[in-house]
């Protein structure tokens, strides 16, 4: 797996995304943690209302790429970024752009469920409150929980602590919490890696449903999961985007030899 990627590697693209369908367009993005370069000239267009999966061996920069999209990497000291991420006609890394606003529009779900030690209700209401939500909060919380397919299970425990839910329920609560700020894009970093198979199933179903309203970028280590939930897949290796295209194509007919080896489980 320590196979190096040639300096001049050009990402292999099959069936490229039409610029008109793009929500987020990453362009020549490089990122350094101090001296260490974690991303090398990554370009990736993310189509609206589709699920894009990022796959690749551990340490290849999937999380880094994901966290660049909502500028969570700004919080890590010593990070430098080069390149652009186009979103709604602006460059997210333009100095005039407020990262706080970016994170409201591009929500995030983390690997380990991390509800606040507050009630279920307050967890969901947290984001809207931050941004001065004026409408009917009860209704908004209910809608968000329904979209996260959690309402049935928690409607009687809205005032109980979010930490009292099961792991899978907690993760769906986090998804509801992310959706409650009405983002356009939801980033998910291995959202099911801490969950059992049944809870994983539910989250995968959920991802299928929410893509009508949101664009999803998901990092996963689980090939089957990538195959099940995503429309497009991007394969990374050592900070380089090796290949991207429709999921079916990537899985059945990868163009690059590294992709092929990763998919068939011969590496990583």
């Amino acid at each position, binding site marked *: 797996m320590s196979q190096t990627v040639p300096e001049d590697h050009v990402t292999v693209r099959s069936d490229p995304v039409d610029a008109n369908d793009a929500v987020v367009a990453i362009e020549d993005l490089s990122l350094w943690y101090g001296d260490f370069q974690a991303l090398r000239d990554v370009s990736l267009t993310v189509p609206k209302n589709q699920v894009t999966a990022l796959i690749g061996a551990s340490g290849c920069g999937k999380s880094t790429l994901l966290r660049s999209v909502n500028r969570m990497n700004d919080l890590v000291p010593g990070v430098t970024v080069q390149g652009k991420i186009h979103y709604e006609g602006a460059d997210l890394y333009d100095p005039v752009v407020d990262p706080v606003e970016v994170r409201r529009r591009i929500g*995030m779900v*983390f690997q380990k469920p991390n*509800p606040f030690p507050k009630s279920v209700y307050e967890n969901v209401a*947290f*984001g809207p409150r*931050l941004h001065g939500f004026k409408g009917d909060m009860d209704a908004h919380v209910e809608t968000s929980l329904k979209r996260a397919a959690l309402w049935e299970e928690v409607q009687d425990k809205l005032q109980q602590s979010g930490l009292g839910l099961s792991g899978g329920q907690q993760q769906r609560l986090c998804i509801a919490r992310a959706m409650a700020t009405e983002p356009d894009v939801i980033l998910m970093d291995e959202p099911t890696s801490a969950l059992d198979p049944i809870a994983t199933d539910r989250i995968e179903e959920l991802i299928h449903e929410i893509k009508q309203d949101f664009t999803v970028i998901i990092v996963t280590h689980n090939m089957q999961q990538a195959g099940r939930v995503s429309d497009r897949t991007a394969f990374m290796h050592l900070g380089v985007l090796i290949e991207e295209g429709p999921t079916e194509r990537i899985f059945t007919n990868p163009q690059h030899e590294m992709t092929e080896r990763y998919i068939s489980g011969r590496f990583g």
Partner: protein
Amino acid sequence: MSLAHRNDADRRRQEAKRARGRTFVAITFVPVVLALALVATLFADVITDTVSWQIVEPAYTTESWSFTEGFAFFSTWENVVEKELVARGEDPAVVLDDPEERRKFRLRNRVELLWQLDGAPLRYVVTSSRDDTVADYGFFEGLRQLDAIRAEAGEGQEVRLNPWLDAAFLTKNASRTPVMAGLGNALIGTLWVIGLVIVFSLPIGVGAAIYLEEYAPDNAVTRFIELNIRNLAGVPSVVYGILGLYAFVRVFEFGPTVLSAALTLSLLILPVVIIAAREAIKAVPPSLRQASYGLGATKWQTVSQVVLPNAITGITTGMILAVARAIGETAPLLLVGAAAFIPRAPEGPLSTYTVVPIQIYSWVAENDVEFAHVASAGILVLLAVLLVLYGAAFYLRRRFERSW
């Protein structure tokens, strides 16, 4: 064969290891037992010291009244005083109906519930500042020689088992007469001082902790400040007293007041408060901050709505421990002018004051065995207060640990 041999050797080595472990446990165990024994002895000594046998020659009467005779809802005092005045051959109405006479009577006499030897154990007596204590015996000494003491008590004298620490002790004020002395004004003084200490040190300490933990750039200046805070926590408290005397009493001219004391003690505990608050803030899981930032919260929103609410138990625990320390401080307050005897309770930040440990200190310094009992009673009250505070801190810490 070789396998069995190796097992034998193994077993021996295991055995030796276990033996070494036991020796080690024994070595660490001894000091713990010694320390516990010492603390127990100290407590026992202080507690028995708060009870003494006394031969008293009352100035007026040797009357006493059983609990059922003396007790009356909300008017026990009037009830007992009336009986006493009748026994003294005076007119109760003269004292009880005139506020000024009442005040004077109160200053020189106390209604106390004492252990008496004869009749029912608990009896009301009115002690007067003119009562003469003929002799005073320690609790155990008195028990051993009770008959001799009884025989010693002459005409018009009586033997009393005096529990120095009773409810009245908490409200009685400083007095030259040991039986009359109590912690009243000192407790009010401590409440004032500590109240102000909390008002000053909590916002400043938490604010500084938030700044250092969340906002301060990681540079030489910050590291220098951090180092100094840690060092300041170890500076002897008397040094803070000198600082307080110079800065607050003299330069700002607050004089020997509650305010000077509170400011001095605030400085004293601030490093501890800051360190505790920083630890509490640090202990908030990073995943919660990430969640907050991920929802588009600003730094300040994250700090105020996620970090602080989750650090609050830790901050409170640290604050309680710091306050416990401030309550017991004596040296710096001696310097910034706590008085040993004050005529009335402090009424505000600019009043003169005394506090519990200073009061105890002044009793210990008295050249009178009876004041030693009073001091013991004071120490017991102080220890009880500290015990409650440490208990609260312990309880909070346990709960805090359980929450994740």
